[in-house]
């Protein structure tokens, strides 16, 4: 009797210490309103992904801290050049939060080209293009945009946040936001809070783009 109760209490004790540790999942501090374009070459192969990421007002202000400008509050593309450089360099560590698969195989993306920042209505937007290492014509291209650590929350907003540019007419694009159904198949409940590896926790917040070309 006493033994059982003791076991119960020890269990409760473990829970009290573990639950806060395990259920303590990351949560975003930066919100990005994203839109993306998939760029196709005239021969119908995909060559790259062009992103436009608008940071939330708070992060935009934070990022602009300490940047000198000629006119207060107005930031030209040139004045923002060094910051854009820092951004793309830092993003490299996170694979630009963009993960591509061609016909189920991981596809390597090169470092960004044509990157710049623009500042408008208190919002900073980072534009950059990630070229595919080798342009390809996969039957199915899958692209995911998310932060595995979920420090950043990516939201694709607006009527048409993902566009195909120059794609063959027969190609069909499907876009799934997190929570649209497909993503919830891999949802994490509180049940797996003891699973130490939550490094890919953010995967359930992935935005999934799929393009099928016959």
């Amino acid at each position, binding site marked *: 009797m006493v033994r059982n109760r003791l076991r119960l209490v020890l269990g409760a004790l473990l829970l*009290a210490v573990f639950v806060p540790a395990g259920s303590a999942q990351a949560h975003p501090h930066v919100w990005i309103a994203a839109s993306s374009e998939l760029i196709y070459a005239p021969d119908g192969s995909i060559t790259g992904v062009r992103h436009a990421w608008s940071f939330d007002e708070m992060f935009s202000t934070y990022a602009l801290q300490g940047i000198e400008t000629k006119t207060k509050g107005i930031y030209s593309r040139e004045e923002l050049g060094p910051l854009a450089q820092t951004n793309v360099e830092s993003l490299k560590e996170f694979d630009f939060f963009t993960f591509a698969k061609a016909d189920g195989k991981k596809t390597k993306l090169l470092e960004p080209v044509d990157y710049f920042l623009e500042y408008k209505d208190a919002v900073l937007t980072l534009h950059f293009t990630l070229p595919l290492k080798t342009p390809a014509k996969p039957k199915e291209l899958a692209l995911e945009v998310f932060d595995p650590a979920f*420090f950043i929350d990516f939201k694709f907003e607006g009527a048409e946040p993902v566009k195909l540019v120059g794609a063959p007419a027969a190609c069909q694009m499907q876009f799934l936001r997190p929570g649209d159904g497909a993503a919830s198949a891999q949802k994490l409940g509180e049940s797996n809070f003891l699973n130490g590896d939550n490094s890919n926790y953010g995967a359930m917040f992935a935005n999934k783009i799929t393009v099928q070309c016959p």
Partner: protein
Amino acid sequence: MAKCAAALALVLMFDAVLGQLSAQNPFGAPRPSGSEPHVGGVVGWLLAKQSEFYREMSSTIRAAKSDGSAVWTLLAISFAYGIFHAAGPGHGKAVISSYLVANQETARRGIILSFASALMQSLVAVLIVGVGAWLLNATAKTMCGAERAVEIASYALIAAFGARLVWTKGGAFIAALQAAPSAPALVLAAHHHDHGSARDHHGQANHVHDEHCGHSHGPDPIQLAGPGGWGRGLSAIFAVGIRPCSGAILVLVFALAQGLFWAGIAATFLMGLGTAITVATIAVIAVSAKDLAQRFSAGREGGGALIMRGVEFAAAGLVLLFGAGLLFGYIAAERVTCL
């Protein structure tokens, strides 16, 4: 009496916040079918809530520029954000709870530790932004770099602190094992002491010589049962409190840019207060659970003390594991992400 009043106030506060929240659409966003991810139950709800509060902060600070009364809204949001936010990783819940269990601390000291470390987190955030952004006009890159350095220092300190706890608690556990020789299987587990912490062990009352679990003239459990001493408590506060919350830093920089740095500072401390309440609640649960375990095990012959020393030792090991895990990135906590 004061305790009761405080507890009642806490309950009322929670109730008020929850009531206000449940009155709203649980997923706030106007989009159909909820673009908010479907994360399980309580955790998902906490995530959604604190995101909402956080995002309201920037608009409220902006509003406060022209309308002074918006500052009160800002403070209320910050407080609520702190409560919800601290349910997430970091903020030392796990470390403080484990430390309290390992070190036979009282619930009262647990509350004090929680509030002190949250206060320190707020102070560090204000200091980083005050010196970095306001005084030196440093760029975000520089400040974020500083934040990262502080984060690594915090994790290293937690690991070192855990190693020291493991060292002392390992001694007590071994002593208890020898008092109860009927549990040979556990002797192997006791081998876990950390040599790296040897420097900590000089000048300590609980001096342990441990040659392959042979001789151990560690202190008897009663000696260790006393309060851990403020020295150890202060190291806990320091190890946990030195790491500021990234959210607070963003709010402070934003407030500074709006010319309302003082409002940002006030918001940061209210956030800290909310954080402290959540951390303290969890700390009190951990301590109460341990007290209960102690009461039940006290009725057992000999083995009771062994179990309790084992629990303390395990909790000490957890602090070390948390520190090491965070330091080497095995625990994907809220890492500072510099863009």
